[in-house]
């Protein structure tokens, strides 16, 4: 299905957000946080979230900031 991943069009075979993260190489230890369609999605909820076509996924990590 087609989704938007960090602002870019992407195609994925993942069924859940956790699967998507796994397929991108982010295991449970990875220092990332997620949001779906503008709403925060906690780490514990990623497994339950069924991806839908057109979902806008954000995957963020720690970065320098002012």
């Amino acid at each position: 299905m087609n989704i938007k991943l960090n602002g870019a069009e992407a195609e994925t075979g993942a069924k859940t957000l956790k699967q998507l993260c796994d397929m991108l190489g982010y295991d449970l230890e990875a220092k990332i946080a997620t949001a779906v369609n503008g709403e925060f999605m906690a780490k514990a909820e990623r497994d339950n979230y069924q991806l839908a076509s057109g979902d806008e996924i954000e995957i963020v990590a720690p970065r320098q900031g002012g």
Partner: protein
Amino acid sequence: MMLEFYGQQVASRLLMGTALFPSPDILQKAVRASHASIVTVSVRREAASAQSGQSSQSGQGFWELIRQLDVRVLPNTAGCKSVKEAVTTAKMARELFETNWIKLEVIANDDTLQPDLFGLVEAAKILCDEGFEVFPYTTEDLGAAERLLEAGCEILMPWGAPIGSARGLNNPFALESMRAYFPDTPLIIDAGIGAPSHAARAMEMGYDAVLLNTAIAKAGDPVHMAKAFAGAIEAGRSAFLAGVMEPRDMASPSTPVAGTPFFKLD
């Protein structure tokens, strides 16, 4: 009495941003030279290809670098232009950095990066209600400041000048009013500082701390400048505690007049 933010004792009155440094090594050395005990960080999209390595350019690598410094992190919501973006970013930051602290920025305008005070108050209320400990990046507007305190903020962070502008304290009169109006609220000057003298002036006014980034990161020698800011902030604080004399219009000799040689009454 030691400075406290949300019940946490704060060892240094200099809060330092971690962006724009020439290299991760210089960032680490500058943080150490500044003796800052709190540094600001952000959350940003990460390319899937960047996360596998431990490069300091990747999020994982950057996090490792910060961990080595043994400082407390204050995540920000930099770049957010709506309440929803800021709230979601804050929640992602809370999970990522495992802290309830959030430097709340809701930006109104790209040119000035000034806070959207209406959005700021709204977002602060939502986040305080959800258990966040909010450090709002605001202006010197007293009405907005009162709304932020009513929303549950226990700290205010008025700007000195627009972010990254190095103009110092644009409106010292209003900043002095703010200090006088909120004598018991921790007040941090956030943004716009360019030179150590700007930071010293803020501290002489009685501000509790200064948060800065670009002035150190973009200095010719960031490590040396970090040390300079640490000294200026300490000096400004000491001066405030000591009590700076009032200026006067006319000269007043410091050397005793009595006994001046060749003195004659006119």
